[in-house]
């Protein structure tokens, strides 16, 4: 457990937190409702973020397909965001990737659907008014 609590820096010395507190504070304060943050809360948030990074990486590696290739890939991560309830909050920023050709096809199909709808509507009235 002690290994989780302290990390080692370049000199091999034990340090409580590796992430820069100043940067963590900037991110925290970008949240509009937050007035002030006590130093302990800042340290704990930084530490929690490190634990989170470790957890996300190891979970994605274990559950992802990159394991055979001894690699951690983006798709391992987006897979995690989609499948795991704990990491659901990441689903929007780690979307699954699809082939460009597939996406273009989807766009085309949607456009055809929209046009079809418009044609049906135009047939109902003689007006040239645009549909709202």
């Amino acid at each position, binding site marked *: *457990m002690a290994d989780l609590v*302290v990390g080692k820096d370049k000199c091999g010395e034990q340090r409580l937190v590796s992430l820069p507190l100043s940067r963590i504070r900037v991110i925290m304060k*970008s949240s509009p409702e937050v007035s002030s943050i006590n130093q302990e809360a800042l340290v704990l948030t930084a530490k929690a973020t490190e634990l989170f990074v470790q957890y996300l990486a190891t979970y994605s590696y274990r559950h992802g397909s990159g394991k055979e290739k001894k690699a951690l890939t983006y798709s391992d991560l987006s897979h995690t965001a989609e499948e795991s309830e704990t990491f659901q909050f990441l689903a929007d920023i780690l979307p699954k990737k699809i082939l460009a050709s597939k996406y273009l096809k989807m766009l085309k199909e949607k456009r055809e659907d929209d046009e079809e709808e418009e044609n049906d509507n135009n047939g109902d009235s003689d007006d040239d008014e645009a549909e709202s």
Partner: protein
Amino acid sequence: MAERPEDLNLPNAVITRIIKEALPDGVNISKEARSAISRAASVFVLYATSCANNFAMKGKRKTLNASDVLSAMEEMEFQRFVTPLKEALEAYRREQKGKKEASEQKKKDKDKKTDSEEPDKSRDEDNDEDEERLEEEEQNEEEEVDN
């Protein structure tokens, strides 16, 4: 204070190191994966902050404290972090106490040169005063950074 987009990111080198230390030796991490984890970490901070802030508001406090962060972790279903975080908090408090005592000692040594020796009974009172001072210092820190 306006934040530039890059300020909301965490340093790549540190993120990479944390990932490497967590994964087995020899595992490659694609650049995309690294960048994705970094973004995820920033989002995590925001989510945790917002959640912790709710607990602070419930307690009618304007300042986020350690227990708010711990409650947030449970709320977010990261209970597994609670024990290591509590240990980190203890270690941090010990460290702070050590620093305080070291500077107190320095001050006492300095005072001894000029004043006569004071009885040890006064130590308890000193601790209370120092706690207040520490809080003030924290607030001062807040004000400075906000500029």
